[in-house]
């Protein structure tokens, strides 16, 4: 069996293949014109850039809007509407210099006032923007002059230029924000490379080229159409027949078939997204770290990668950070050892094993598949797991962040701090472990305000050591992001975060 354990070099190489090769093909004079048809399987329910969270909504707003910064291939912030930025006063003040001569799709010039209005809207709780918790350290934002904007932060925050690249923190015009917020649902007015032409959320959303886009000569395409296929089989058939040019998300089960089909290029990008087993620590049996460790030893990670991910991923060892993050430490491999797990369970006071119910929502199917596999793998260690599947909405209402043993599923975050404060700190946005480690909280707080690379690396390494010591989650693998495009499509990429798509670089041959 091929060991897919990630080395930093392999991952960087993977990213290089994903991003540089399309870059190379640009060099050979891209052609202008044509319409790119993208298929997707989830509705574009809204185009409200401040609020949306759908998988097909992200590429849509990536075309329509620009942010101050944009996440680059290596996960670091790159210039977008801001040409450059400086941090001062120990990282509590950030000043961004904006591009001049940029206009919104309706012709209004873009100025610092739009940035101020956008961030003030995001910070209002009633906007309920997912970006709010990421930038809530902003104390005030001010327009120094029409092309300079300054943020004053309540804490030192080295990752701030990454935080403002959040998919929901893209710049909306002050004029639009003066009107009702719901107008943004269907009438987007951004500075991005494409403008909205038709919005039919049940069928197709069509974007056309923004002739006044601030990067000279881009975009190459005349138009982009996002076609909705609620049925996965229909989506695959349409893609394979050439009726659409790009399939936004490919299912593991279909990947090989799509990769080997003539005229089709399947693309797989290593990512830090994962399925995790949540074990609440404020009640038995998982209040005992030995029980959590015993379960961790009862999971055959490589086999899960092979049978659930079809090999399209890498085994993980309960560290929430994959090697795509900057400060990831090497986590020791947790071998599959049911005998040792059984002994540890006995030591923890469960010589006859544990009978427990594991809940998995039915969407995506991978949650239940992992649950069933773990049930079988953990049987010889003495875990008698009963799997209960339920519709996703029921799960969200009754089990998520309430139950003591269930399957969760998370995408990759742009920064270490983003991942820690999403799930694991005591005040994390979606805290569900009841771990409440003051030690961990302190390390994360220190790390986020440290401006010294080496010190951050050390603090984050210590924080990860704590995760490995206390095993708040079982994270069996990291799942690759899968997409596919037809032969004539040049420059189509996906990012491990699945938030930026750079469609202005895509052209049709």
């Amino acid at each position, binding site marked *: 069996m091929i060991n897919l354990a990630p080395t930093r070099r392999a991952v960087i190489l993977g990213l290089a293949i994903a991003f540089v090769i399309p870059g190379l093909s640009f060099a050979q004079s891209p052609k202008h014109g044509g319409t790119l048809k993208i298929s997707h399987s989830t509705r574009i329910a809204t185009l409200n850039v401040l609020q949306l969270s759908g998988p097909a909504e992200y590429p849509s707003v990536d075309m329509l809007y620009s942010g101050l910064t944009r996440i680059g291939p290596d996960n670091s912030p790159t210039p977008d509407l801001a040409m450059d930025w400086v941090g001062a006063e120990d990282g509590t003040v950030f000043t961004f210099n904006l591009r001049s001569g940029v206009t919104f799709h309706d012709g209004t010039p873009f100025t610092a006032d739009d940035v101020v209005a956008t961030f003030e809207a995001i910070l209002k709780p009633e906007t309920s923007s997912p970006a709010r918790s990421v930038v809530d350290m902003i104390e005030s934002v001010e327009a120094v002059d029409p092309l300079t904007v300054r943020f004053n932060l309540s804490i030192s925050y080295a990752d701030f230029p990454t935080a403002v690249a959040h998919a929901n923190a893209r710049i909306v015009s002050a004029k639009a924000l003066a009107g009702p917020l719901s107008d943004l649902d269907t009438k987007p007015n951004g500075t991005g490379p494409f403008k909205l032409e038709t919005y039919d959320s049940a069928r197709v959303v069509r974007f056309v080229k923004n002739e006044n886009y601030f990067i000279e000569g881009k975009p190459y395409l005349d138009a982009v159409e996002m076609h909705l296929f609620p049925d996965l*089989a229909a989506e*695959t058939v349409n893609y394979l027949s050439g009726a659409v040019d790009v399939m936004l998300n490919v*299912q593991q*089960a*279909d990947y*090989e*078939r799509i990769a080997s089909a003539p005229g089709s290029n399947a693309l797989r990008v290593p990512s830090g997204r994962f399925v995790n087993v949540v074990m609440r620590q404020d009640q038995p049996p998982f209040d005992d770290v030995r029980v959590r460790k015993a379960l961790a030893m009862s999971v055959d990670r490589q*086999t899960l990668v*092979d*049978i659930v991910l079809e090999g399209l991923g890498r085994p993980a060892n309960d560290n929430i950070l994959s090697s795509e993050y900057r400060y990831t430490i090497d986590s020791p491999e947790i071998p599959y050892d049911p005998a040792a797990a059984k002994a540890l369970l006995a030591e923890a006071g469960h010589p006859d094993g544990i009978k427990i119910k594991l809940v998995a929502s*039915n969407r995506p*199917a991978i949650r*239940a*598949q992992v*649950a*069933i*596999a773990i*049930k*079988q793998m953990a049987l010889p260690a003495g875990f008698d797991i009963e*799997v*209960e*599947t*339920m*519709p996703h909405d*029921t799960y969200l209402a009754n089990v998520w962040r309430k139950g003591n043993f269930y399957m969760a599923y998370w995408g990759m975050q742009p920064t270490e701090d983003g991942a820690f404060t999403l799930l694991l700190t005591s005040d994390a946005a979606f805290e569900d472990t009841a771990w409440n480690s003051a030690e961990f909280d302190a390390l994360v707080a220190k790390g986020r305000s440290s401006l010294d690379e080496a010190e951050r690396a050390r603090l984050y390494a210590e924080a990860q050591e704590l995760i490995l010591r206390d095993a708040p989650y079982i994270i069996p693998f990291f799942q690759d992001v899968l997409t596919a495009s037809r032969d004539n499509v040049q420059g189509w990429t996906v990012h491990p975060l699945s938030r930026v798509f750079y469609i202005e670089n895509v052209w049709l041959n």
Partner: protein
Amino acid sequence: MSELIRTPPGAVGALLLALIIVAVLFGPLLAPYDPQTFYTTVRLQGPSADHWLGTDQFGRDLLSRLLHGSRATIAFGLGATGLGVCAGSLIGVSAGVAGGWVDSIIMRTLDGLLAVPDLLFTLLIVTMLGGGTGHAMLAVAVAFTPGMARIARSSVLSIREREYVLAAVARGESQGYIILREVIPNAIGPIVVEATIRVSFAIMIGATLGFLGLGAQPPSTEWGLMVAEARQFMFRSPWGVAVPGLAIAVAALGFNLFGDALRDSFDPRRRR
């Protein structure tokens, strides 16, 4: 019995039923492998000498899962139909015996319920109660009740005026005695025939609910759930869908043909 299998459909039905009964009674003994064990080196395979019907996405043996699953699947069909028949017969016989306005109220209410298709009715109930085998079975039983009540009532209406019933009334027997000893034994023929045919529908509805994730829960080997789990891999290996799908069809066909033959044998006009 010999009369039942004289016609080709009856013979086929009886044969299929016999197969199913063998699977239900001896399935776990006949199964070559444990139905839950992963054989990860032989995932998504077609039939072979080692795995006669192939394997699923976890490398579990399809034949073994099919044999084990026959119990859950058939038990669901029989259980749901049994409950529905009992409830329906009770209501139908009561309405038929009582007559008058009681009969009118009960039957008009049931007519209203009959307007809703069985599967839709079942889905409504399962959505209200939540999924799981027990709830699904109850839902199918409730959906079957109006139809069974109608059949039971019509038999009772024709029997009510027969001489032996009038004789029992003349003897001064109690209402309960008349229903239990005179009416039901004579009305049971059509009810049994209807029930047999309905088992096939119950099996299919059960499989549908399992497929939709509202019935049996993984890693159960219930056949509808097997189809649902294999659907994602249909293009790579059709066996995971085809094997349990065929099994559902065979079971439904068996009960249906047998029920038809049973009805024919009860029908005096068709007797030669």
